[in-house]
């Protein structure tokens, strides 16, 4: 065990004898969205919306005071009866829910139970405009990783101030010590003749609500 470790490290050192100094990483790539088309926050948010929709996920904008109604409407549209939510989901998000039972997450909800539910509502940590991605880090309103995975429908609430332009901006905001899930559209596969099919093992439907200030 340690013998293997020592031997591999010794081989690496022997292999690198006389090797050049490691290079500095040239970071001339764009860290922010540039150009005249991204002058305002609204442009970045618009790009996010467009890119999420490209993945055949549905995306809608709502005002902050309409969020409860929008969440309820989305769930009614799915005819959802029982859903799961992270235990710290803001109460207001579910305030208008009528006829839909929302179970707060607990360790008693194991995968087979979650698989029988009609969906999940979560927030996110960061969203990326350039790639149409939402990132969950298990923080506020996000819960355990399996919540946004096992149920077949995921409704994700994104506040506009969570949307950044680029991948480097997102990496800068995220905490590597939290378990992260980057989600770009519903689960998909291109394994059969490279023809894209949405919906395999992860949620087959992803809906994003962008909450304006």
């Amino acid at each position, binding site marked *: *065990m340690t013998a*293997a*470790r020592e031997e*591999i*490290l010794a*081989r*690496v*050192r*022997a*292999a*690198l004898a006389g*090797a050049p*100094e*490691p*290079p*500095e*990483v*040239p*970071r*001339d*790539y*764009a860290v922010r969205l540039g150009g005249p088309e991204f002058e305002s926050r609204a442009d970045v948010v618009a790009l996010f919306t467009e890119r999420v929709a*490209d*993945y055949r996920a549905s995306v809608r904008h709502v005002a902050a005071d309409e969020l409860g109604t929008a969440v309820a409407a989305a769930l009614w549209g799915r005819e959802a009866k029982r859903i799961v939510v992270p235990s710290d989901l803001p109460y207001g998000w579910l305030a208008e829910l009528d006829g839909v039972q929302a179970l707060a997450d607990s360790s008693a909800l194991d*995968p087979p139970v979650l*698989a029988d539910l009609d969906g999940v509502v979560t927030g996110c940590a960061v969203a990326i405009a350039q*790639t149409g*991605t939402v990132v969950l880090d298990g923080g506020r309103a996000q819960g*355990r*990783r*399996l919540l946004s*995975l*096992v149920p077949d429908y995921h409704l994700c609430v994104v506040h506009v101030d969570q949307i950044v332009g680029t*991948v*480097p901006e*997102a*990496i*800068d905001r995220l905490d*590597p*010590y*939290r*378990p*992260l*899930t*980057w*989600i*770009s559209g519903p*689960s998909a*596969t*291109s*394994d*059969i*003749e*490279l*023809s894209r*099919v949405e*919906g*395999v*093992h*992860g949620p087959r439907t992803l809906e994003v609500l962008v909450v304006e200030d």
Partner: protein
Amino acid sequence: MTPSVAGPSGRPPKFSEAARTALADTQLRRNLAAATHTIRERRAAVVDEVADWEDLRDAGAAVKDRALLRLDSALEELERSVVEAGGTVHWARDAAEANAIVTSLVRATGETEVVKVKSMATQEIGLNEALAAAGITAYETDLAELIVQLGDDWPSHILVPAIHRNRAEILALFQRAMPGVPPDLTDDPAELAAAARAYLRERFLTAKVSISGANFAIAETGTLVVLESEGNGRMCLTLPDTLISVVGIEKVLPAWRDLEVMLQLLPRSSTGERMNPYTSTWTGVTPGDGPQDFHLVLLDNGRTGALADEVGRAALRCIRCSACLNVCPVYERTGGHAYGSVYPGPIGAILTPQLRGVQSALDASLPYASTLCGACADVCPVRIDIPEILVHLRGKVVESRRHRPVPTPEMLMMRSIAWTMGDRGRYESALAQTVRWGRLLSRGGRIRRLPGLLAKWTDARDLPMPPRQSFRAWWRRR
């Protein structure tokens, strides 16, 4: 300790022979041409929209070089970070050692079934076969891997291992080999994907142990990263109690920030998407969320040998995107099986011989499985100069044969040419002979067939008839 890279069973023929069989299969060529052209166009479209793509490639190459050129300290740092975050780190010198470690870890859980995320490293070491020998069933959960596993087939592409199968073939396979398949299943890809979802659902929900690879392992933080599309990866990385990740030592990145480069390069290069549907990152274990027992198996298996080669080591930058396969005119026609390794295509032609050595006829033939057109180098997101390494490895193949008791025909020919060209008189008389014989052999201004061993040259092309006199002869007379 000897590195081994899995390939089809039996004694695989050299590339040119295997390619002949593949080329005769018109169905295969149709499947491959359609698939490679689709993904090629998709990649080009999403790369073209990135204005700073070349800057990202520069950064990507430098990030990998930075890790590789101080790999010893990077690995030690990675080990420290993973252990601090609650994981356990194991080291494996070769495939057999890695398989033994994983087998004993699975046995310790008392489980006899594991679910697997698609991983090149575990394919390379033949892990599924080793687990089966120990009475442990490994279920591949990626759709293409499932197709390969159910069909007892061999992967032919890094990203889409079942690229050589079309929908009709996959339907027939599911009907034959997938328990509980719906009787009215059609060859619509959406229906086939739904059948796979139903088949694997139960396994995911009850699995206790999973095995993965990783696209990246970050030394600074101890974070592992897996990019995927279907959600099978998330299932395996999240639901079981125990997670075992087998990761090649070249997968390490120095810093968290380096991920901002790789997460832009990899999805666009491999699936031709701005971002793949799911990327999971985890650092050790998180109480109350996901596997509570995490093992990282660091795999050498010939990588340190490649690292020692100052030209060849650039191959270790590879992030397994498979863009080089998709643009390669040779791969497009022969498919992946002819390369006789889990790593096909241009990258396989430089990786396999470096990991396995060039002793076998197959491995010695791989550096020649290319026209050196350079399309692969143009698309490589980490700027691996594949043609340069191919030529370098051809040199190694020749070098390895120099000391054989019986020289190869090629070597005899090269030696006699060297002798001829070493002296002006010999050279000029040989030239005069060549011109005479060349003119005798030609018909209609072309030589269509050379005699003996030289016939290999004219098998695929004609030679122009040599002119009546050589430049030297003309010069002397003017």
